[in-house]
């Protein structure tokens, strides 16, 4: 078997909660609570789950924008949680992030040319002419024109700004792109332009994507495999087609059944869940989903189910399959 590009093992992020006048740690937000998965080279892994389940935190830990509380992250077989700052800088150039709102991360006082040139400078591309040429190239790759280089972010539409965000991520030929809700803020017609662009770039440059989103239609469209998170845990992961055709975890089943389908002839059997997602400060004992699960059994409130491979490549964490 070939080595995965990324492999995370038992990854955890517990944010401390400070309280009292002394600022002592009084508890923690268990944003990510022991997840393991891998991403093969050239594939797209989609990550879905409800607001606050830990998707962005997972992405940020892989880039080491956040220091994990526990666990290991292998990038091309190397444990990057142990790298020095200097070594990490090199590795980080191989991974880039695309954000939901690129506007917030584009300096409004810099031209697009300058914004795209910056990562080249940071990563030591010395030749000025070469940098200019690369900027032109990048603009073309994402479907913009070279005259856009002299413009400022506010002169672009949402879809164009997202293209600029993608161009910036591509500047230094990364291997992995972590796209955190890259099309959520865009209109449907613009959204499909950006999704098509991401797919074209993947084919052309053999990119690997971790694609974080809450839109299950978008995720199915773009992903080879999909992981479903709930309250800081990975509850199911499998080939995308498998997951959508045959969801095994009760949460995945509820999630998929809740999506309104744009087809008037289609009648959906819906699982309506009761109650709210519990707080990650006080996650329930046992299965994290047991407080809302329509199929919960006695052991569910005591024993945390392990993620197990049930069918070829289809992993699920649920006592129904013990």
């Amino acid at each position: 078997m070939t080595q995965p590009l990324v492999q995370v093992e038992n990854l955890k992020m517990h944010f401390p909660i400070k309280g009292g006048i002394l600022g002592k740690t009084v508890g923690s937000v268990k944003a990510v609570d022991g997840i393991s998965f891998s991403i093969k080279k050239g594939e797209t892994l989609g990550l879905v789950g409800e607001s606050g389940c830990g998707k962005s935190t997972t992405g940020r830990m892989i880039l080491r924008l956040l220091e994990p509380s526990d666990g290991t992250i292998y990038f091309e077989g190397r444990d990057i949680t142990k790298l020095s700052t200097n070594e990490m800088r090199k590795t980080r150039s191989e991974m880039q992030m695309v954000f939901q709102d690129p506007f917030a991360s584009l300096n409004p006082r810099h031209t697009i040319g300058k914004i795209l040139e910056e990562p080249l400078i940071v990563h030591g591309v010395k030749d000025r002419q070469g940098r200019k040429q690369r900027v032109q190239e990048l603009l073309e790759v994402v479907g913009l024109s070279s005259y856009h280089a002299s413009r400022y972010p506010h002169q672009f539409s949402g879809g164009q700004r997202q293209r600029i965000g993608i161009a910036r991520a591509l500047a230094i030929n990364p291997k992995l792109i972590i796209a955190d809700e890259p099309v959520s803020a865009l209109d449907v017609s613009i959204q499909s332009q950006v999704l098509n662009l991401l797919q074209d770039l993947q084919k052309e440059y053999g990119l690997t994507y971790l694609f974080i989103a809450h839109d299950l239609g978008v995720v199915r469209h773009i992903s080879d495999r999909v992981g479903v998170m709930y309250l800081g845990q990975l509850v199911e992961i499998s080939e995308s087609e498998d997951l959508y055709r045959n969801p095994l975890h009760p949460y995945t089943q509820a999630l998929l059944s809740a999506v309104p389908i744009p087809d008037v002839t289609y009648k959906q059997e819906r699982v309506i869940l009761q109650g709210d997602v519990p707080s990650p400060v006080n996650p329930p004992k046992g299965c994290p989903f047991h407080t809302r699960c329509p199929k919960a059994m006695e052991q569910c409130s005591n024993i945390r189910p392990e993620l197990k491979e049930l069918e070829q490549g289809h992993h699920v964490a649920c006592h129904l399959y013990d």
Partner: protein
Amino acid sequence: MEYPMIEVKDLQTSFRTDTGEIPVVNSVSFHLEPGEVLGIVGESGCGKSVTSLSIMGLVPTNTGKVQGKIQFKGENLATASEARMRKIRGNEIAMIFQEPMTSLNPLFTIGEQLTESLRIHRKWNKKQARARAIEMMKLVGLGRAEALMDEYPHQLSGGMRQRVMIAMAMICEPELLIADEPTTALDVTIQAQILELMKKLNRETNTAIMMITHDLGVVAEMCQRMVVMYAGKIVEEGDVSTVFQSPKHPYTVGLIQSVPDMREKKERLYSIPGQVPKPGSQKLGCQFAPRCTHAMDRCLSEAPPLQPFNNGQKVRCWLYGDGKGADIYDSAISSS
């Protein structure tokens, strides 16, 4: 004489800006019958929210101008006094706003805000109103309803605030509920819960709903009729089943094809080239022409009218001037 419950006729709402007065809603007409659910879709900035603010009498009067007729049970709201509108808002017509924080008052508890309309409009006593408010909060899936009554908006998460808004809008059982992207900020499992509740309200109290959304799935699920807006104008209107199965306007066709369907994976998504024009930037012809693959000479010089078809569908497009091009959707799907 029978009126529709609400009839909007030639609504024109414009804003004064540095570059002059710009119409953002342009001769928009539609109507709703009691108990009907009408969907309004269209891209960001096409005028959906401004249309609903115009109905509610909430367009800022210093920069905005609302013209046309908004007949509500026979009364023209466009010319109604602010005092009259205050009686109607939250009582006969209620609205769920796109931004919950702008419409909850940070200085009052959730309970005070939820019971206000019952006490003012319905003259209920404190105890009755409180009981009803708690019941309503439980209906929108807010578990700790009793405790939440005494909390302030900032103590709630975004999703919880949105649900308080929804409870507040539904509590008086309005005749018309305007829901502006009511579930966009919510997770899908919560969205499913809220949509179910809105259906129930519609069924049990015959509340008509104007459902503004960008989610075609929500329209397919909730609405009987729909209106598609583009750059301030209605470009297509009809029964939801008709519009979904045989959309006629090239924009509607593109929109329906652009949505990734969760049930099956397409090799490649359709995408409408270009982007939405800035309001007021294009004066002549069809507003969609710069993005339209069917555009003809005439489209650049003359604005097409909204033409009715026999089945009740209405379309604003020159393709249908002489009955040509009636199958652009079929040829579009067979070629994709």
